[in-house]
């Protein structure tokens, strides 16, 4: 028996020592994020560079897929091994963490640097502020509210570039006749429900969106307009191709770039793909905010800083938070990312026509649109998205059934 245990000991002891971290004089920070694409990596490395220029070490933990990355962050916090900083979306994704007291308050830096004065739009402050204290750093603004259109395709069939989904649908059969896929859509849940919200808001307008998604107003939900959104969405889906299931968003964007497809509904990160392909905004492709009323959807990313017993970690966290909102770093980061900065005093002279459109629009507070996940839990958004995705994929799932199931989610208290 002794022999047995001594074998065990010889196995375990050396192993357990390999896990002791090498403590160093400077600050060390591990950051979990899901920015793995080319443009995204360029953006996060702006943060990393700035951090290392301050004489610190950046430990990068990139995890493919937002869901996976957030899941890892939460597990690590629950499991007692939190990262220094972690990415979340502008949303309610991390509210539980704040309420359970698991996140570091950033109020010290926030009030010292006057974050409340320069963070724009103020809705971003709402996202991060809990009981008068800052718990997250917004780093950018991304809007879903875009149609990306190949201009050549429309020239070829002799149609003007559509400005609304109705116009798009009117022209779609003609494009199909020309042997081109009218609508490029990647069949992943987030792409399907993302496009749905764009269709919904452009048809119903923001006030109605708000009464349904935020206030859970069933009368508004049942007044017929939401059903017409579902019908339009179903109609749009007749114009997608068979290769859609599981296709990645950027492969889907490539179809528009190559002229295999006419249009994709996608967030403004798609712009990076056009830029990499050497295409010029409004010349080779158009970016259109669909609908009569134009909105910028207020999406984007934030970083949170899980509490840690080690006071050195707290110092690193506050230093990093302050670095992320620094206007110089913001300019570099957002130029690489193709997103809008979270403050107005940032140099955006490199912006292209599409980004400029977003920059102009966001100055108007009435054009700022909140998204469902600003008001709802991830569980709600996921349950809702499941239904939308299934609605898209299952032709036997009727609008009436979908309405009932969505009402079920609205009233579920999720």
């Amino acid at each position, binding site marked *: 028996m002794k022999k047995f245990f001594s074998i065990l000991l010889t196995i375990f002891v050396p192993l357990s020592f390999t896990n002791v971290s090498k403590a160093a004089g400077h600050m060390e920070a591990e950051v979990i994020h899901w920015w793995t694409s080319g443009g995204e990596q360029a953006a996060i490395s702006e943060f990393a560079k700035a951090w290392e220029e301050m004489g610190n070490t950046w430990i990068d933990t990139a995890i493919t897929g937002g869901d996976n990355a957030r899941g890892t962050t939460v597990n690590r916090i629950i499991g007692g091994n939190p990262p220094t900083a972690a990415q979340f979306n502008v949303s309610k994704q991390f509210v539980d963490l704040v309420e359970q007291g698991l996140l570091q308050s950033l109020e010290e830096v926030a009030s010292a640097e006057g974050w409340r004065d320069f963070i724009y739009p103020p809705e971003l402050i709402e996202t991060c502020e809990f009981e008068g204290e800052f718990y997250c750093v917004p780093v950018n603004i991304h809007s879903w509210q875009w149609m990306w259109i190949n201009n050549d395709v429309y020239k070829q069939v002799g149609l003007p570039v559509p400005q609304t989904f109705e116009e798009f649908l009117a022209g779609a059969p003609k494009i199909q006749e020309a042997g081109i896929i009218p609508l490029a859509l990647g069949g*992943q*849940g987030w792409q399907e429900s993302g496009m749905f919200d764009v269709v919904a808001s452009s048809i119903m307008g923001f006030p109605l969106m708000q009464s349904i998604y935020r206030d859970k107003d069933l009368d508004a939900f049942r007044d017929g307009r939401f059903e017409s959104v579902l019908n339009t969405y179903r109609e749009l889906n007749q114009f997608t191709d068979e*290769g859609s299931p*599981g296709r990645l968003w950027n492969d889907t964007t490539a179809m528009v770039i190559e002229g295999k497809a006419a249009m994709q509904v996608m967030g403004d990160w798609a712009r990076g793909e056009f830029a990499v392909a050497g295409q010029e905004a409004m010349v080779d492709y158009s970016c259109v905010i669909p609908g009569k009323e134009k909105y910028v959807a207020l999406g984007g990313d934030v970083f949170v800083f899980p509490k840690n017993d080690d006071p050195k970690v707290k110092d690193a966290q506050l230093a990093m938070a302050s670095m992320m909102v620094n206007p110089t770093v913001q300019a570099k980061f957002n130029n690489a990312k193709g997103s809008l900065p979270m403050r107005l005093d940032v140099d955006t002279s490199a912006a292209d026509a599409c980004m400029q459109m977003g920059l102009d629009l966001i100055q108007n507070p009435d054009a700022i649109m909140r998204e469902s996940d600003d008001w709802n839990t991830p569980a709600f958004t996921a349950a809702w998205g499941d*239904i939308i995705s299934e609605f898209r*994929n299952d032709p036997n799932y009727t609008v009436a059934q979908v309405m009932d*199931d969505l009402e*079920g989610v609205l009233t579920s208290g999720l």
Partner: protein
Amino acid sequence: MPFYRNIAAKIALLPMIVISLTVFVGCIIYSFVYSLTNSKLVPVMNYVGFDQYERLFKQRKWDVAVENIFIYGFVFTIGCLIIGFLLAVLIDQKIRGESLFRTIFLYPYAMSFVVTGLVWKWVLNPTFGLENSMHMWGMTWFELDWLVNRDLAIYAVCIAAVWQGAGFVMVLMLAGLRGIDEDIWKSLSIEGVAKWKSYIFVILPMLRPMVVTAIVLIAAGVVKVYDLILALTSGGPGYATTTPAMYVMENFFSRANLGQAFAASIIMFISVVCILAPWAFYEFYLRNKYANN
């Protein structure tokens, strides 16, 4: 019996006992307790009764998941048994290169589910995969769109799984066939029973212990299926190939809906107990106990 008798054996079994109690039993109690709460991102004791279960059974997605696990479980188990038995019988015909064939049929079993999923995803790729090959060979009628077809995608999962697992069943069956007494074959051939008939009606019943072992080992894997589907279809198209295991993992780790995940996992657990436990109890416990006493 005094406590100190067999004390060494008791100490030796202590890790097993502790693990059984804390992990196997403890985890189920923990999961059940928290399935009665509305925990979201982190576990909180916020009692809501059986709301999570009620919500679970209302989910269309859960229905799809349950249906899928039945299809998968049935096709995978039956497929492995039939193909495994068939291959064992083929190999048992005194063929040349027996060990080569055995290796060929067994090697997929060495592959992980992630690898299996990724390979079949590539082979069944609608643009570059087998369908394309057939078209290039002039068979333009050939259609193999299983991965993107919501009704067939779950069968693509089954094919990949059977490819992976059939070889193991073959080895078990072959071991059984090799244990059959020569005299039985002699008497069967004297009576002039057709060979295929002897295999099905005489030999197969004699392999019952092997079949039972195979079924138990396969079935224990069925409920756990997660990585294969993750690699092959990610649960898609839509959520057409989702399974209870995926539903649970999704709610645990990406949807921050712990209460729901606990409820779903408890239902998974109860189903497994209902289906497997009485039978496994008989096979492994009672039978062995009486056999040895």
